[in-house]
């Protein structure tokens, strides 16, 4: 079984947003929401955390007209040719993800890709996020 990030206990989220900030720290070396691959929103009586599902056959990669996004072995995607994203106007990768888990980096004009590092799960106090075998 490959190791991956999964949302294990969605309803336990308190919106401490530690995952959001440590993610931006890993990806870009700063603390921010806009550089993070994770979003939290209100949902019913609680909160909903949205992360990349690490799909085996990712719709976002299939939708990429420039072959910039490629499926990664073990699930999810990697961004191989980010310079190709700069001229992409419609962002089909973002629209292709039904979960809306892909975010857009306005400054660098490319999608923000989850690198499956698992740091977010390490700092999740309620095991909403879990990094391990997908059972």
């Amino acid at each position, binding site marked *: 079984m490959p190791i991956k990030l999964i949302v294990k206990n969605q309803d336990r989220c*308190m*919106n*401490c*947003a*530690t995952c959001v*900030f440590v993610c*931006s*720290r890993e990806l*870009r*070396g*700063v*603390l*921010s*929401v*806009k*550089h993070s691959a994770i979003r939290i*929103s*209100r949902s019913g*009586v*609680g909160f909903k955390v949205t992360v990349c599902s690490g799909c085996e056959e990712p719709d976002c990669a299939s939708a990429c007209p420039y072959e910039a996004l490629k499926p990664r072995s073990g699930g999810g995607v990697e961004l191989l040719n980010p310079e190709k994203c700069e001229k992409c106007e419609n962002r089909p990768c973002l629209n292709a993800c039904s979960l809306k888990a892909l*975010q857009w980096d*306005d400054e660098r004009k490319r999608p923000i890709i989850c690198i499956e590092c698992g740091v977010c799960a390490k*700092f999740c*106090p309620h095991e909403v996020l879990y990094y391990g075998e997908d059972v």
Partner: protein
Amino acid sequence: MNGDILFINLTDGLSWVENRRELVDKCIGGSGLAINLLNELCPDGVDPFAPENPIILASGSFIGLYPACSKTIAMFKSPLTGNLGESHAGGKLGAAIRLAGYEAVVIIGASSKLVWIDIRDNGGVKVNGASSLKKMGGLNTIMALSESSSCGLQSIVAIGPAGENFVYYANVLVDGYNFFGRTGLGAVMGAKNLKAVRITGGGEISVKNLDAYKRVFEKIYEEVVKSGKMRKYHDLGTPQNVLTLNQIKALPTMNFKLGYFDYAEQISGEYFADNLLTRKNTCPLCPIGCKHVVILRSFFADEHEVESIEVGYDYEPIYALGSNLGVGNPMDVLKLRAVCDRYGLDAMMTGTMLAWATEAYEKGLIGLDETMVEPKWGNAEKYIEMIKHIMTMPNEFYLSMAQGKPYKNLGEEFLVAIGGNGLAGYHTGLAFIIGTAIGARHSHLSNAGYSLDQKLLGSTINPVNAVEALLKEETWRCVLECCGVCLFARDVYDKHMVLEALNTIGFNYDGESLEKIGRVAYGLKYKFKFKEGFKFQNLKIPKRIFETATANGIISPEDVKKALTVAEAKIKEIVKEATAQ
């Protein structure tokens, strides 16, 4: 720490940024920054409701960086105490301010019509009309202004109708679960015709030495989550106090006439958590989840017609609207809290006034002509009606209630407030009373006298030693307030940890210079108080405090007098040191 302060003048709608990096380096941020700005900007003797009274919202240097740090400091001149207005709120505000690129936001002037302010990073400030939000509760206002798809951290603060009506202890709701609860910031916003402020932090916070910062972050995170130092706040939350205090006869009951409540079990943290708790909320980067929330459902007609709302519960509102009003039904306590929240009233001061009114009515000092409904210990329905009257002020009596004053000075000996601020729920002993009296914001959180009383339970408390200990505690707490540390995490952030965390993000302090920062912040708070007419000799301790036995027995008025004399001299020394900076 870029040092940028955002100024907004509501009179002409203009906004600008001033860089005060030097000041931030000197005082860290938070309450140190806020009190410096307040002393600079607030004209001597200003009417708290005048446009010139500034509202300062200061973030702290740890906010958005370290776990359990999210306390934003509000400062202004208070209509309730007549001098320093100071209140601290959790929630997303401080992080949003920093992610928008600022250390603090200062609001001056007043609008001619009701408005709300929209602040975004890169300098975008827009003042919008708020006519459609008039008389709306804080939570509905926040829901109306909230943007779900924002790609930044968004925080919204809003007042309810009590703020629009200038109730002297109107509060400000922050993000739905947190409050600037005390000393009347809501009324000052109301006087500026300011319904709400929305801040969207779309920027970033960077740290020079990322690896060192990550190590310190993890160390603090582990302490917060695993050490047990914050278990109380995580588990039952502050309502854990109900049974603890009741057991030592320190739970104020029916306007401090008693120190224990027969129905304490029913309104205890244990009862709420076991039977009613539905969720916990928390602040950015805080894994604790101290905000305990229940879904309060009520049937409003036959055939099980039902309405439900979320209500938070904490110790202080449980004491203020529960035991101190003789209300022993937990659902009634929640209903009272919900009404205060909807109107935007500080639940603590509201409880203080209702308790006073009930006793004044009981003693025949006031009658139905004044109160319009019959106040009665334990009768929540009557209190709900009275709370509405406090918000609308239909007669002279309720005008005085809304100002936090005893009507025609009747029964002032049992209006349980010090320095204008209603007492918190700890009838623990001498240290609590001295602590509230000398606390710069007359709050139990200023210096935790209640905690000292409990540590010294059963022993004789020397008033002079108590002053010494309380001043030491309060000046240290000022350091934590400058950083933005939540006081619930005070055991995690000891001096060693604060120094390590500070120095990792680019400040350069040692133990001595750090302590000095706290003393200076405290001294500057008192500088403001003295400037605005605060005098120790005018500080009245209500007689009731000396009549009811505390957990440590009867408090002697001579001890309090002695303590205040000693404290005054010491505080004046601290002011001198702070002013010399």
